[in-house]
């Protein structure tokens, strides 16, 4: 449900109506950014930001720090698994030695 696509704001096309051009892999589309522009900020300040687009509306700002954190966590899980695997491989050897 609810196809949402990450894209980058490349320009502000109609500041009065909160419209910006968002780029997804080289394809651009005009998108409403009303939901992600904080009060008392200038639409221009959002150029370069990554947003999540759903049916022509930017619905969330993409948080790079959180994304990095998620990826790091995934990496850790992987490393943890590798350690486990290494332990498993050692176990039969140790068993063999003790015989």
């Amino acid at each position, binding site marked *: *449900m*609810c*196809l*949402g696509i*990450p894209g980058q704001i490349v320009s502000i096309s109609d500041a009065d*109506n909160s419209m910006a051009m968002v780029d997804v892999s080289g394809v651009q*589309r005009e998108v*409403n950014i*009303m*939901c*992600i522009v904080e009060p008392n900020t200038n639409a221009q300040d959002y150029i370069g930001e*990554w947003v*999540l687009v*759903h*049916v*022509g*509306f930017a*619905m*969330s700002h*993409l*948080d*790079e720090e*959180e*994304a*990095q*954190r*998620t*990826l790091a*966590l*995934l*990496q850790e*899980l*992987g490393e*943890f*698994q*590798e350690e*486990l*695997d290494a332990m498993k491989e050692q176990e039969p050897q140790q068993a063999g030695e003790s015989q």
Partner: protein
Amino acid sequence: MKYVDEFRDPDTARKLVQQIQRLTDSIMAKRAEAGYTMPLQLMEFCGGHTHTIFRYGIEQLLPDTIELVHGPGCPVCVLPRGRVDDAVALASRPEVIFTTFGDAMRVPGSQKSLLQAKADGADIRMVYSPLDALKLAKENPEREVIFFALGFETTMPSTALTLLQAERQGITNFSLFCNHITTVPTIDAILGDPDMILDGFLAPGHVSMVIGEEPFQFVAKEFHKPLVITGFEPLDILQSLTMVLLQINEGRTEVENQYKRVVQKQGNSPGQQAIETVFEIRDFFELRGLGSVDHSGVRIRDAYARYDAERKFPLSLTGGGITVTDPAGCQCGDVLKGLIRPWQCTQFGEQCTPQTPMGALMVSSEGACAAYYQYSDVQELKLKRSHQKESVSA
């Protein structure tokens, strides 16, 4: 950072799958001690997740002791027949340009789909955004442009903001045929079913992006089920499964957020405000496959009645509260609740195919049955079903 490819890495996936295997083994061992051997039933509520699961073949990577139950989170699938009939009736009015998202075009009503209505001469146009529909209204002042507003909370802000823009710009030949539905009452209905056998939830990431984490707390607090708000890339799904399994293994039931790069704890407040301004909860709304669910839909507030197609044009069917029931033999409800697998439905691949969908789950490509039909070997599945029947009767 492109926020896409990073979350599709096969090496990381392999490691996650091993982790999932280890956790499942641990959980199943504990359960076996308690004399309980049924596979873990984990529901992904959202059709987007279902799509990712099938597109990346995630089910075949998982241990047999996990069964994914594909929930009702596809607003196109659960659109009841009566509402499609109403949409067709509205679209067939000569003064109307009826605008819709592409996926709603094929959903069958009791007589025909919008695609068939278009072939019969109705002026029906596919749009990418409700703003495109509003633009059409501006360009065609002599016509009435109706937008087929559907979707969960993710889509509600966009239609609400479009309506508010129409008001601001003084556009009067624009209206919404509102079929928005809400997630929480629908999950509540599934969990409240006495036959419910689910062990945990992957919650819809993009709905959460709008409504935040809080509305899902009841799943952990009242129903004592683990729930993880989940993103839509394959690694997101695998990581969330790991998080749900960790909770089960440790005996925790909490709301956790795997999709923090998009979902903030409090959700999107301008979006919530737009919803609050424009919509109010209906007493009940019908969902195809689940039947009538209390408080599951929204309607346009009285203050914006002039933008409500249901009030602008009297509807013959659901406007009068008449339900057009699902076809006999359709077991979508049981599939949605996880009581049977899609291929265990006796109609699957027989009367009910993507060409001739009987029920909700065969209607859209997001539907669990359609996904099984498209991405698996249907003959094999039918064979499996007949074997099961034989073993039951034997």
